[in-house]
């Protein structure tokens, strides 16, 4: 045999070159044995050419079912081909107690080494009396039985599968003379501790928030629903990232058709990688061209559980601390988890205020502009005097003034968010104070405009849902332009268009504006008003469930009746 490397540079001298030649030889042998002669020829050249190796890898990936070779050398060569010279890829040779050689392959960055150590120790220990290698009919089955200490073992005959498992962080055991590989799942590696949700803060109620680890996140949900009916279906999304996605629902509550639809839409996703649940959401939305979040995303496990109990589905994406909840609806934007933990009359007031100020956030500056430039008669005379007095000498038209200030506010907000935490606070306060104060001093904008913009900005920060407040922030600008060009007429048109759009939206078949859009009076117990918990006896009718009853009727607490025992 003549190798290109040796032909060019004489005898192979470096360790690396020798390894490559060895790898190439093993690959050629493996492929020839499978009858893949074209690939075998390529493997022959792979010793000296990285390009040939990549090309060979591509070809092999296309082969549907390559068997796991029974020769450990071939295993090494193949894994070397798949992973290249990965520093964190560890091959550990060990001998089964009294039996054949085994090589354990794993990525030490993803594996909990202490746990692995314990499992491997069991393997190399000599087998008990009478269970020696002579009695093994199947080595792989034996190994699996000995590995009872490991949390999860799988076996495969498929090379692709085995390599994929290594990439996912499992430890693969290849046994000499066996065509099966055994995977031990002892994944490890660092993850963030569970801490309070940063984006959805509440005063009263559970404080745990999701983290980036799927395992932790599903634990947080499981811990709150201690019932076998909580189902979690896992699938992977992303051709390269192989991101795990879990669809959670409660079997006897959630409609199976909803779960099927969610799974169907998730399986339709074809993309190289998913980094956050937001990307998943964009793939499975009903109407992609909308500013409003058709899918609710939350950082709080208690919110997810609440939604599951309403018959919704949750989607948890590995690597994202935001879980998705479908179907979403417009009223979500005025609801916060705390509404359910605080006294119900207070929740009513707060929800009304939120809705009101959602409107302010949307229409505040545009109403001001429309009223001052078109409809002076709508402003009380005395108020008009003070507005006029402060507008005196302002060089810009009111629309431009509003646009400048709105943009200024966006700058402050964005800078405050993006700045390093140590600076963020001072930037927002200093920016707001100094910009506002000196803009008035310099006579560039009028004081009432600053007030309007500030109130609008605060109002948009008040909404519990960040995505919705983003939508309102964006929509504010077209409204402002409409108000500046057509006055209240333009505002009415804009508002009507927006309302029409909102009414046309649906999320997983559920009208977005329900229970207002299709009018569902039975759902009003928990939209703007929140009835006391004992009065919320039915799950929302806008979302279909297999079981709509959530609490027993007539359980209003009251003192026991005089004389005759407590009421039933």
């Amino acid at each position, binding site marked *: 045999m003549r190798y290109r490397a040796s032909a060019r540079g004489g005898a192979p001298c470096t360790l690396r070159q020798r390894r490559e030649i060895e790898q190439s030889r093993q690959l050629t042998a493996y492929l020839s044995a499978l009858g893949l002669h074209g690939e075998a020829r390529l493997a022959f050249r792979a010793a000296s050419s990285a390009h040939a190796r990549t090309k060979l890898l591509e070809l092999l990936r296309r082969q549907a079912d390559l068997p796991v070779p029974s020769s450990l050398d071939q295993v090494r060569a193949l894994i070397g081909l798949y992973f290249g010279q990965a520093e964190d890829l560890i091959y550990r040779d060990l001998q089964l107690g009294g039996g054949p050689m085994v090589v354990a392959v794993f990525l030490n960055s993803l594996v909990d080494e202490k746990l692995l150590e314990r499992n491997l120790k069991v393997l190399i220990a000599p087998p008990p009396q009478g269970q020696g290698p002579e009695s093994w009919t199947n080595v792989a089955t034996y190994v699996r039985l000995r590995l009872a200490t490991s949390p999860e073992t799988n076996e495969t005959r498929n090379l692709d599968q085995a390599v994929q498992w290594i990439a996912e962080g499992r430890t693969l055991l290849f046994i000499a003379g066996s065509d099966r590989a055994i995977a031990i799942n002892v994944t490890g590696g660092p993850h963030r501790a569970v801490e309070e949700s940063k984006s959805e803060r509440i005063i009263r109620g559970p404080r745990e928030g999701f983290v980036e680890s799927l395992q932790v996140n599903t634990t947080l949900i499981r811990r709150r629903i201690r019932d076998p009916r909580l189902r979690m279906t896992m699938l992977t999304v992303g051709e390269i990232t192989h991101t795990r996605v879990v669809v959670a629902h409660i079997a006897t509550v959630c409609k199976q058709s909803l779960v099927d639809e969610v799974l169907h839409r998730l399986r339709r996703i074809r993309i190289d990688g998913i980094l956050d649940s937001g990307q998943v959401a964009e793939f499975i939305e009903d109407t992609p*061209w909308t500013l409003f979040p058709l899918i609710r995303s939350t950082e709080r496990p208690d919110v997810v559980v609440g939604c599951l109990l309403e018959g919704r589905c949750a989607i948890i994406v590995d690597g994202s601390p935001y879980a998705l909840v479908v179907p979403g609806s417009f009223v979500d934007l005025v609801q916060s988890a705390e509404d359910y933990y605080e006294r119900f009359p207070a929740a009513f007031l707060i929800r009304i205020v939120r809705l009101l100020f959602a409107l302010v956030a949307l229409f505040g500056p545009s109403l001001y502009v429309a009223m*001052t*430039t*078109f*409809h*002076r*008669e709508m402003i009380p*005379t*005395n108020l*008009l*005097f*003070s*507005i*006029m*007095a*402060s*507008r*005196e*000498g*302002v060089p810009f*038209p*009111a629309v431009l003034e509003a646009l400048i200030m709105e943009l200024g506010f966006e700058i402050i907000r964005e800078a405050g968010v993006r700045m390093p935490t140590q600076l963020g606070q001072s930037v927002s306060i200093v920016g707001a104070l100094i910009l506002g104060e000196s803009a*008035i*001093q*310099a*006579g560039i904008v009028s*004081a009432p405009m600053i007030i309007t913009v500030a109130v609008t900005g605060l109002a948009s920060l008040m909404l519990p849902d960040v995505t919705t407040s983003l939508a309102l922030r964006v929509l504010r600008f077209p409204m402002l332009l409409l108000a*500046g*060009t*057509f*006055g*209240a*007429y*333009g505002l009415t*048109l804009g508002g009507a*268009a927006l309302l029409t759009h909102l009414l046309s939206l649906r999320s997983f078949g559920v009208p977005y504006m329900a229970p207002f859009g299709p009018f569902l009076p039975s759902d009003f117990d928990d939209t703007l008003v929140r009835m006391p918990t004992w009065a919320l006896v039915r799950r929302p009718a806008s979302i279909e469930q297999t079981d709509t009853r959530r609490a027993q009727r007539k359980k209003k607490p009251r003192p026991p009746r005089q004389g005759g025992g407590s009421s039933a």
Partner: protein
Amino acid sequence: MRRAVALLLLLPLLTGCWSRRELNDLALVVSVGIDLVEPAVYEVTLGVAGPGAAGSGAAGAGGGQQGGERQPVKIVVTERGRSFAGILRAVELRLPRRINLTHALWVVVGERLAEHGIGDSLDFILRAPEFRLQGMIMMIRGRSVRELLEAHPLMEALESKALTEIAQARIGLEMRLWEFFSARATEYRAAMLPIVELVDTPDAGPIGQRYVAKLGGAAIMREDRVVLYLDAQEVRAIKWLRGHGREGVITVPCGEEPGAQDISFRITRASVRTRTAVKGNRPHFDLILQGRLRVSEMQCPRPLTDQQVQAELVARAEQELQDLVMQVIRKLQEAEVDPLFFGERIRALYPGVWRQVGGKNWGKTWRESPVHLTVDLRLDTTGLMSDPLRAKSGPEG
């Protein structure tokens, strides 16, 4: 999507609000005065709220002192011409900003115009979309419209504000533009104009004037000119009959025999009921005034706890009110004017009779109609004390 874009593009073609005008391009008119100079030549005086002192200074210096100087400066502009609209155009040649009438909530009619007949000189006010008819209308007596518009009020920044506040406080007569015009729209209803007078008073010294504007009586119009003046006292009867008797004060002598000592009653509740009957084409009116009183002042030493004394004093108040109201009604009947819309009741309840005696002839019929008045006042409380101090029957006697 394409349809939405097409709709957006069509949007500017629709009727919209095209009068986009920044606030600092506006001359905000707060009061409008109109008077007659010679037949068919009117003089219109506009009270314009000019930019405040803070704004007119350098913009840069404005920030510091804005707080104190928010009150608008008043600018008074007068122009003569043959029509209201023409005069407004002529004024605009002088004012650097566009006239805006949306806050012209005070219309003052000059004495000369009111007495020579308003005619259709106020047509503009009804026709122009900017005018709001909830504004007040008044008439200036004795002085010119311009003098009134230039006067500084005691507390408010603008005279219009001051006088409309006074009228709204239910002490003076309150006449809104819509009310005035709806009365002018028929032949049988008479329009009323509250009268403003400029009275000399030392109160006006601190504000650099000799006089202040004061809401006084009322002028009653037949057709389009004033035929009858009522004084401030008589306006109180008008207010009673319009159902606004509350907050008024009735003062009657309280001594054993009428003398210098008085008792004043504050009216805490007032209502008026009118019953109509027709006897052979002759309308009869039966008015019942009911009110509740509170003693607000008493100067003579008589025991108010005594039921008889109470009854006597209340009876005097009733008599006083009866006399006042009857006097006003007689005046109205003699002048053949009906600003209280008694005719309206006949028209609504007895259309048959109305066809014979109503319409143009209502003035004559009204003059002949008997009016019967019942006054029923009740004393609710004597205030925070019962007997006056001197009426106490203590050990000293």
